[in-house]
């Protein structure tokens, strides 16, 4: 057996570890700055012809801006940009949590059927003018119905799985079944919808930032502000769950309870964002992988980086959606999918070739 005296001459691991921590923190700061720059660029881009210095002045000195500039910057562009940041954060972290809970690197926020459930919730309002929360003002019916359907769907799966002691594979199968049920119902709604309703529904399903309002910004911000600090405090436990799976119990972690909590948070974030902007794919799949490639599996760094990368990808997608075809703003979900598909293919093939 090697003794302490025999190994004293070797490089102290703690020192190497501290350097690695500094490197990760530096990367987080760099990506944060990149995100801030992307946010400013997104604010300066729009379908109109507002000069960039006028736009910037409108942001930093709103009291000196003309009423037109004030409206464009603060009522139109700002909610869209902030929604891009918040939804990027929310979808990315929801994807990361789903990958942890389901122990599957290809899981994403919609794996358990959130997208089709939210779509059906929206279809009920658009096509059948029916809502579970008809007491709410008309403007909020669609968002609220989509939110409730998606949240209840995932929570039902989570609670059912916990009660029956289902394995992770069984939970995924249940999610697929639920997804197909809501897809069929959504198809039925599309079949009976008139042309205008169908157009509204399809456009909603594509995902768009353009209808973002300050109220929606507020709701998403509150959910993120409540959930994210708790997740950061649970970083060690989430790392243990990712690292040891069921065996994390021997470290004193209540694995079943932690899984349920993370599933609830993932559902809450994904439901709120999907209800606000529609179905935006690939952020939740791609951002956690990019983050892990940059800072590794330690969730203290990975979670922060996941949120930043999610916000960055979403903001860059927002810029592309406005710049790709002059005068036209493409649905954000389409752009994220176009940008995400090559990465997804690389992820799958890279994985099968053992490069991950």
């Amino acid at each position, binding site marked *: *057996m*090697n*003794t*302490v005296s*025999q*190994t*004293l001459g*070797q*490089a*102290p*691991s*703690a020192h*190497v*570890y*501290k350097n690695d921590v500094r490197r990760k923190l530096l990367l987080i700061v760099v990506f944060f700055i990149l995100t801030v720059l992307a946010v400013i660029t997104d604010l300066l881009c729009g379908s109109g012809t507002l000069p960039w210095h006028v736009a910037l002045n409108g942001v930093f000195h709103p009291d000196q801006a003309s009423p037109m500039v004030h409206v464009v910057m603060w009522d139109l562009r700002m909610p869209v940009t902030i929604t891009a940041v918040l939804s990027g954060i929310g979808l990315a972290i929801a994807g990361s949590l789903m990958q942890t809970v389901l122990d599957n690197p290809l899981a994403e926020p919609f794996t358990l059927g959130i997208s089709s459930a939210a779509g059906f919730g929206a279809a009920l309002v658009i096509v059948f003018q029916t809502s579970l929360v008809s007491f709410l003002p008309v403007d909020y019916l669609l968002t609220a119905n989509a939110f409730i359907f998606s949240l209840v769907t995932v929570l039902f799966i989570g609670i059912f799985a916990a009660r029956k002691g289902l394995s992770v594979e069984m939970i995924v199968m249940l999610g697929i079944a639920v997804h197909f049920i809501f897809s069929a119902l959504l198809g039925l709604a599309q079949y009976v919808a008139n042309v205008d309703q169908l157009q509204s529904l399809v456009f909603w399903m594509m995902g768009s930032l353009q209808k973002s309002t300050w109220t929606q910004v507020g709701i998403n911000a509150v959910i993120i502000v409540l959930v994210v600090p708790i997740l*950061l*405090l*649970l*970083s*060690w*436990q989430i*790392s*243990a769950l*990712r*690292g*040891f*799976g069921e*065996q*994390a*119990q*021997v*470290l*004193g*972690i*209540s694995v079943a309870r932690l899984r349920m909590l993370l599933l609830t948070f993932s559902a809450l974030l994904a439901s709120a964002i999907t209800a606000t902007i529609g179905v935006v794919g690939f952020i939740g799949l791609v951002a956690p992988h990019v983050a*892990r490639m940059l800072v*590794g*599996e*330690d969730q*203290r760094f990975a979670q922060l980086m996941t949120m930043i990368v999610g916000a960055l990808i979403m903001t860059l997608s927002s810029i592309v959606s406005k710049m790709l075809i002059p005068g036209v703003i493409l649905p954000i979900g389409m752009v994220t999918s176009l940008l995400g598909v090559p990465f997804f293919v690389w992820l799958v093939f890279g994985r099968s070739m053992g490069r991950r």
Partner: protein
Amino acid sequence: MLNVNELSVRIGRVDILKPVSFELTTGQSLALLGRNGAGKSTLVKGLAGLVKAKGDIQLEGVSLNDMTQKERSRIIGYVAQDFSSSNVRLSVFELLLLAQNSQNMQLRASPESLVLAQEMLNMLGLAHLSERMLNEMSGGQRQMVALALALIRKPRLLLLDEPTSALDLANQLQLLQTVRDYTQEQNITTLMVLHDLNLAHRFADQTMILESGKVSAFGDTHEVLTAEQIANSYGVHCEVFIGSDGSRSIHPLSAI
């Protein structure tokens, strides 16, 4: 002292472990032997609180039954049989910090955990693997890491489920010698599931043989591992040689 009284485990409709009772003095190691499916891993998991078990377990006068999993985890170190199949992408040093900070609600790793991780790497001769990811290591190296993860939490009861199954001969001896030294120096209690009867002879003070979930033999290792008992429990004829220094070795001859 570890006192186990009528410990049993039922999974579905099957009694995997029928009521088992035994005592083990602190500072001693117990080898758990038996054929495949005898209930060895289940007994260890029952003690670790990883499967629901009936019966009373007392460690150094404190009942484990009254403890939460969190409290139990502070005094029990467990090395799983299938830890080596884990594909976690964390470095060995990160894993050692994780094992110590798993209940930490602060983002910063505690300073003591950095010192202890370094000490544990040095103690087990793993310092050269510190930056290596678990999925880049051999099965044997992973088993050494698994032991480090269990020891770093300073357990009072150490449970090892086939800790040497992927190790070469030199590393088998090194790991079990480390476990034996640690058990005696720290005055803790150790249970290890083994298949190699010679290793049990060499490193275990006490031996228990399980058959179909029941104890078929228990006592001092040299008294339990006789040719007759091995024939009864394993269905194998063998010879037990006693060396000039009193050490024993078992030579299997043929299946009965």
